[in-house]
């Protein structure tokens, strides 16, 4: 058991962060500071997802990323979306992830030291760097030439919910209905997937169906 109490490293980081935020707000303005802080959180969380050995830690890093994204949404005046992001993504999806992790008892199935595929790791890193560089290059070298969609002009009166709603139920009604259908299918699918073949409670040492390659286990009654 380690000691309880606040980790000094965490304290240091929090203090430094606060100082930076205040300084930034004074020096370069609110929005750039917010962008910087939220960006740092986002990237830090992303790094955490990729690098953390423990899946639970990875899930929590994901939450950090999602929060950072939500903050950025607010900075861009997409308030409704920020709320939805927190409620749905961080509140439902990540929770779902954590449920599954807990349910299956997956601890550290990953061995981050070696990769069974030869050369996968360096290649992946190279590709990632290339992709980032490429996309950034696209962003930097091009100018945004798009024109606002007619009828979908966004009036900045703080009431983006009704504008989103109006658009949703007029121009994108068909997609909306399809998406709701999709959700129904997802629910049905989840129920089917989670069901077992004969409705028997799953026990760890009594597999009901077997995958190819699985050893065939025989229970006490002689049934396989």
């Amino acid at each position, binding site marked *: 058991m380690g000691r309880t109490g606040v980790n000094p490293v965490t304290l240091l980081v929090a203090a430094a962060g606060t100082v930076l935020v205040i300084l930034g707000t004074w020096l*370069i303005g609110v929005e750039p500071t917010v962008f910087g802080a939220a960006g740092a959180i986002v990237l830090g969380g*992303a790094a955490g997802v990729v690098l953390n050995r423990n899946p639970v830690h990875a899930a929590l890093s994901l939450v950090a*990323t999602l929060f950072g994204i939500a903050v950025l949404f607010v900075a861009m005046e*997409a308030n409704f979306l920020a709320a939805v992001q927190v409620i749905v993504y961080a509140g439902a999806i990540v929770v779902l992830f954590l449920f599954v992790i807990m349910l299956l008892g997956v601890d550290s199935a990953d061995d981050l030291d070696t990769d069974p595929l030869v050369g996968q790791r360096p*290649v992946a890193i190279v590709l990632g760097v290339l*992709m980032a560089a490429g*996309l950034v290059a696209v962003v930097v070298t091009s100018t945004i030439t798009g024109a*606002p969609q007619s009828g979908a002009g966004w009036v900045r009166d703080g009431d983006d919910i009704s504008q989103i709603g109006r658009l*949703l139920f007029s121009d994108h009604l068909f997609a909306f209905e399809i998406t709701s259908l999709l959700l129904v299918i997802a629910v049905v699918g989840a129920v089917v997937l989670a069901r077992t073949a004969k409705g028997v409670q799953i026990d760890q040492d009594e597999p009901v169906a077997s995958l190819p390659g*699985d050893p065939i286990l025989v229970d006490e009654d002689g049934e396989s």
Partner: protein
Amino acid sequence: MLAAAVSPGWYLSLAAVLFSVGAVGVMVRRNPLVMFMCVELMLNAVNLTFVTFARDLDDVGGQVVVFFVLVVAAAEVVIGLGIIVSILRRRPSATADDASLLRG
């Protein structure tokens, strides 16, 4: 205090980097759950891009797209986790590398 707006290029670059990190994560991690989380990272990067453009072009349509992405991502997570659960139930030590039946 300077209230300079952040040009959209910054947000887009951030989204780009986030996307790349997610891609790297998918390629590097073997645990299916963690791979899934990296996919979520990529989706979020896309969402960020859409919202950036929505703000820059004064178009609510961008936010509507984010809405849909969110919904579909939720459905996808439901099914995906259902599949992962049904696989990992039988073989708790399964990794993404075990599904290699397509090997030519």
